[in-house]
């Protein structure tokens, strides 16, 4: 029963021999690829450093010893250089191998064809319904209105380059120029006037970008608006203090713009290093002083 069922669903095999040959070839190709990846990794990470070490100490064959030219650099620097370059090469080769393998599979279409055939069969089995309820014209019109709204809304936001919430032109990472990297930092001011570190979460629900933009606009507001904003910021901070007793009472907040003048197209990091060091510049965006006399200075 099961075999009949399988036969009717997935279709009959015509001549299985060539398919079997292809399957064997593909299996061996895959095993070969895996073995090559593992072997090259062992070679790159385990064997080659030992060979470099021997050659550096001139313990290898004379012809090979000459491969290491600059012995003024330490052995460690040679090994680090080797690891960096070889890992890059290994990754590229392995990725190329895997891509070639996937392309082979895709072009042969064995996996895809089989899956699609099964999906088709599955769908066909749903297309012999016992009951079919046709849609009324009104419901079809409703569906078309929804579709049109989605398309029109999305395209309008895209063409107008505006947020038409919930539709958007998704302005994500579109302006990438060779420019310094900037960030925003908050510092608390104690009643004595000393600066203390202050987390962005102290002004929840405002996030980092809200805070940066808000402090930049602060200086442009009228005096009355400024006082209202400062009072609200103080209320937010006091709310956070009530939840987090580690926050100390503050006399005000300063907002800084941190600037790193880096050539970000050539900078490299290693996993041992923290990416960001101290900023090259720290510019005061604005400062608020809490009650009893809220005021803004710039």
């Amino acid at each position, binding site marked *: 029963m099961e075999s009949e069922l399988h036969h009717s669903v997935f279709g009959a095999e015509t001549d299985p021999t060539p398919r079997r040959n292809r399957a064997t070839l593909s299996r061996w190709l895959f095993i070969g690829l895996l073995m090559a990846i593992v072997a090259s990794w062992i070679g790159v990470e385990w064997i080659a450093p030992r060979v470099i070490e021997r050659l550096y100490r001139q313990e290898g064959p004379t012809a090979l010893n000459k491969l290491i030219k600059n012995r003024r650099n330490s052995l460690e620097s040679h090994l680090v250089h080797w690891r960096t370059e070889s890992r890059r090469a290994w990754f590229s080769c392995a990725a190329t191998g895997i891509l070639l393998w996937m392309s082979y599979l895709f072009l042969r279409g064995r996996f895809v064809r089989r899956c699609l055939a099964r999906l088709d069969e599955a769908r066909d089995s749903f297309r012999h319904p016992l009951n079919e309820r046709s849609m009324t014209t009104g419901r079809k019109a409703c569906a078309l209105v929804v579709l049109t709204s989605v398309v029109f809304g999305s395209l309008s936001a895209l063409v107008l380059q505006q947020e038409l919430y919930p539709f*958007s032109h998704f302005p*994500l*990472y579109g302006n990438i120029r060779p420019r310094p*990297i900037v960030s925003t930092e908050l510092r608390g001011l104690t009643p004595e006037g000393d600066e203390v570190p202050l987390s962005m979460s102290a002004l929840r629900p405002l996030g980092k*970008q*809200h805070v940066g933009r808000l402090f930049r*606009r602060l200086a442009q507001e009228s005096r009355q608006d400024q006082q209202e904003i400062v009072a609200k910021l103080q209320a937010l901070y006091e709310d956070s203090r009530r939840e987090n007793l580690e926050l100390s009472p503050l006399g005000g907040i300063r907002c800084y713009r941190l600037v790193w003048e880096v050539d970000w197209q050539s900078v490299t990091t290693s996993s041992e290093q923290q990416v960001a060091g101290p900023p090259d510049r720290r510019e005061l965006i604005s400062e608020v002083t809490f009650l009893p006399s809220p005021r803004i200075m710039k």
Partner: protein
Amino acid sequence: MTLISGLFRGTASRLDRFLFAPVLPGRLGIVRAAFYAHALWTFGGRDLSGWAAMDAVVWEPIGLFALLDLRPIDAATMNVLSGLFTASMLLACLGLWTRASTIASFVLGYYCLGMGGNFLKVAHGSQLPLIVMAILMCSRCGDAFSLDALWRRWHARRQGRGFSVHVSGEYQWPIRVVWVAFALAFMACGLFKLFGNGWLHNDGLRYVWLMHGYRGFDMPSMTSWLLHSTMISSVLAKLTLVIEIGAPALLFSRRARWFLVASLFLMQVGNGVLIGVHADLPWGGCYLFFVDFAAMAYIVPTPLREAVGAGRILARRTSAA
């Protein structure tokens, strides 16, 4: 004239097949439950009290907030609304009073999720899920895999009536419209990068990785390792652009759909892992609309298929044929 009318008829017929091919309600029901479960996990139970009276600080309303002059209310009411939004998503997930709960999810979701966008910075994580909620609100997504369907079945049995499952285009179009919204959203992302300033020429991906590192994100060692090579970031940046702009192809080609949806998903997972952006995958629920849960039962190995009962359905259909 004949050519134009032929083209029109051809397009209309294709659109009809694309949107209204009759299917069983199971897939839409499962997707609805999974989508709302994901939305509940991502957006549920938020504390909105902080936004109360924040319009005194700064207020730049967007969308319907500007049109209807919607503003933050007091802290207690904001939290009540957030609680109602969570409850409505839970009901929509369970499929209880599905029509009402999906409408409530969308209306309350618009207010609760969109509120933060009125304060100078729009969070893009909630936009596509909100569009999906609007689509589900207009659909008959509660006809299967829901407490409503169970209740109807039980009620029919109690009255001695038979209960039959219908196939209909009603269960196909919501899924297809979500695909359209999904493809257009990613296409917009790609076009902004293409016509923006320098994603291609200045190795944008590398800048994005570094920028998040400098802004205090604790970068995993994999990001640092990827930064070693300009080639990797350059290739990935170009690939990102091709995949995003090519997203509408998923509407037309089944093979392209497999590749594009998987690539976009991996891209978003990569964003979460490498730079911590949208690490909780707020769009994750939208990918579920591409999973053919019903047909999946036929791909899985036979013993498992038998275990979930799909084999019995298949056997019944085979013998009927």
